[in-house]
């Protein structure tokens, strides 16, 4: 087994298996441990400069990745006009940079503020480190290997689909520069870490809040209807 086989076939499958199995176990059997573990109560000034840029940046970036994975044609059609391509690339780059700045703030805060250190575990540091690498390699890739939104659909869309459909094609990723390979490997590592860390809060999407009734009443007694 060569390195490519391990890094881009075996490891992704290990990550995916851990991600699915452990996440289900934790959400179903250990729901108390699922939390975003906010530390805003203990420290809020630096959190403001870290959390908001990071989350808003990374959400859009992930959304772009998802669009490229699910509907590559839409992306290619959008990029057909150069102006639109530049617009997408520039906004993607800025959002990535924004997220990077956020994660640097968060990392700095976690290492230096005593109140935050009191609620910091080793796995928190690992999560931040991998996230930092992810953001850094992502931003560098976007600036050094133009234009990501064009070649992504030719390389990563088929590669990720090959993984998901259980017909892995590591040869798609093998010839890429090491920086991009690191980005891929690192993100699979993050995926593996997700169910073991606070990252599991990524899966909480409280969107039903937008439509649910304001009040929730739960009782043991049989009741005609509870409003």
């Amino acid at each position, binding site marked *: 087994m060569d390195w490519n086989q391990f890094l881009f076939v075996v490891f992704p499958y290990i990550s995916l298996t851990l991600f699915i199995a452990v996440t289900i176990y934790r959400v179903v059997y250990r729901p108390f441990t699922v939390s975003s573990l906010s530390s805003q109560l203990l420290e809020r000034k630096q959190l403001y400069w870290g959390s908001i840029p990071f989350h808003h940046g990374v959400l859009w970036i992930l959304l772009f990745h998802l669009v490229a994975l699910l509907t590559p044609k839409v992306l290619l059609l959008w990029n057909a006009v150069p102006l639109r391509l530049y617009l997408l690339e520039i906004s993607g780059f800025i959002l990535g940079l924004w997220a990077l700045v956020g994660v640097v703030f968060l990392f700095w805060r976690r290492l230096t503020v005593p109140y935050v250190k009191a*609620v910091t575990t080793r796995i928190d540091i690992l999560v931040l480190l991998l996230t930092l690498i992810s953001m850094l390699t992502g931003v560098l890739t976007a600036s050094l290997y133009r234009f990501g939104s064009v070649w992504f659909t030719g390389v990563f869309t088929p590669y990720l689909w090959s993984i998901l459909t259980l017909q892995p094609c590591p040869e798609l990723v093998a010839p890429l520069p090491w920086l991009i390979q690191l980005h891929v490997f690192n993100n699979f590592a993050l995926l593996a870490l997700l169910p073991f860390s606070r990252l599991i809060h990524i899966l909480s999407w409280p969107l039903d809040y937008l439509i649910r009734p304001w009040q*929730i*009443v739960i009782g043991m007694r049989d009741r*005609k209807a*509870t409003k």
Partner: protein
Amino acid sequence: MDVRTHMSMIFHLDKCIGCHTCSVACKNLWTDRKGAEYMWWNNVETRPGTGFPTQWENQEHFRGGWERKKGKLDLKLHTRLEGIFKLFYNPSLPGLRDYYEPFTFDYQNLFNSPKKDVQPIAEPISMITGDPIDIETGPNWDDDLGGSNIYAKNDVNLEDLPQEVREQMNELERLVFNYLPRICNHCLNPACVAACPSGAIYKRDEDGVVLVNENDCRAWRMCVAACPYKKVYYNWNTGKSEKCILCFPRMETGQAPACAHSCVGRIRYMGVLLYDADQIPTAANVPDDELIAAHREMILDPFDPKVIAAAKENGIGDDWIESAQNSPAYKFVKEWEIALPLHPEFRTMVMMYYIPPLSPVVSVTEKSLFRLDLMQEDYDFELFDRLDAARLPIKYLANLFSAGDEGTIRTVLRKLLAVRIYMRRKTVHGKVDSVSRKTLAEAGLTEEQAIDMYKMTTLPTMEERFVFPNYHREMSIKAILDPLTHKGEVGLGYIQQPKRGE
């Protein structure tokens, strides 16, 4: 009519001596844990004062409760969409500084210190970081008006009082305070429930207790900000929100909540209130001066056959209805109308009620001097006719208990005073004269009511103060399940340790 039941607590503030036994009982039972050190599910504040957390009533700052916007009731904290966008950082969340940094003392140093020329000391250390700290504040830092020109002066409820009254309240001869014990109000229109993006907070149907399902809580912390009473707390260790549970495990076994049970002044009463859930949306959405009336309207008469029929239709058992008929809460809130909600203008429709205090010592002004040596009958009637002479300004009480409406407070205080005058005649003088009867009538009370109020205030037994219905928890168990399964589902002890996730 949608009749539902609620366990309600009454606080008789005239009887509160500010001993904090309730707070300590609660702390020992529920919040003596890592991450919960700073929480006081039950706390007692000195009023005037800034309370806990500091200035919690200032909703321009903390944005708790509900707000009427164009005739519609909305959270003051956020719209639903804003709520989603504020998940990552919640600007209205109180910080640890707004509470206090929990501390202990390094007692080990007293034993381990090397030999020195000076005595070793137990240095204060933070219970969060473990580092030595300078204690700058703590719970009840302004107890009994300690530092009142820093704390009491900043009481939000003093804001619309005339400047000279405010200044007088700072003069040594005029200093006046009362205590305000607070627990979660277990509201009918709770803002914490409405603000929770995860839908983890809910109201129990059978007794109205508002609970956090910590398995669903994801630490978005909106509940902490949305509660106008700041009675939901965030546990920084477990990453879950926590709040007063009204000691429901005790109530289900017929015991009063720890705070009420341990109350030295016996100021607390508990009982069932029947209310009409259909009226909640309308009653929460009336102008400020109609809030108290709408709130009282929503509480139903447990003797009314129509109410009883509707209650039975809703599956409420006979013993609960009977309990509601014997409830001291019903007497204070609805029959005598002397118990008022705390800050009804927050529009969460609280279900814990306060009987506002008569001033601690009655005094009158004479040639702009205060006289305390008046004949009793003189100052009794003096105050009854001129409540503005009360040492605690009526407006201040009105800001606390009736959304600024002084009329409501005057009515309540008149009733309390009339009973006091009437009973004094009866027990001290041995006979009731026409003047005190007239006073009683003017206050809107009959003699029987006055005697009932007197008995319930001064002489109640434990069974009269706490009237608990049978919860029938055994009925909620599915009889087809293995008894050993039930054993793991109810009772004491953790099924899983509440351990912090990574």
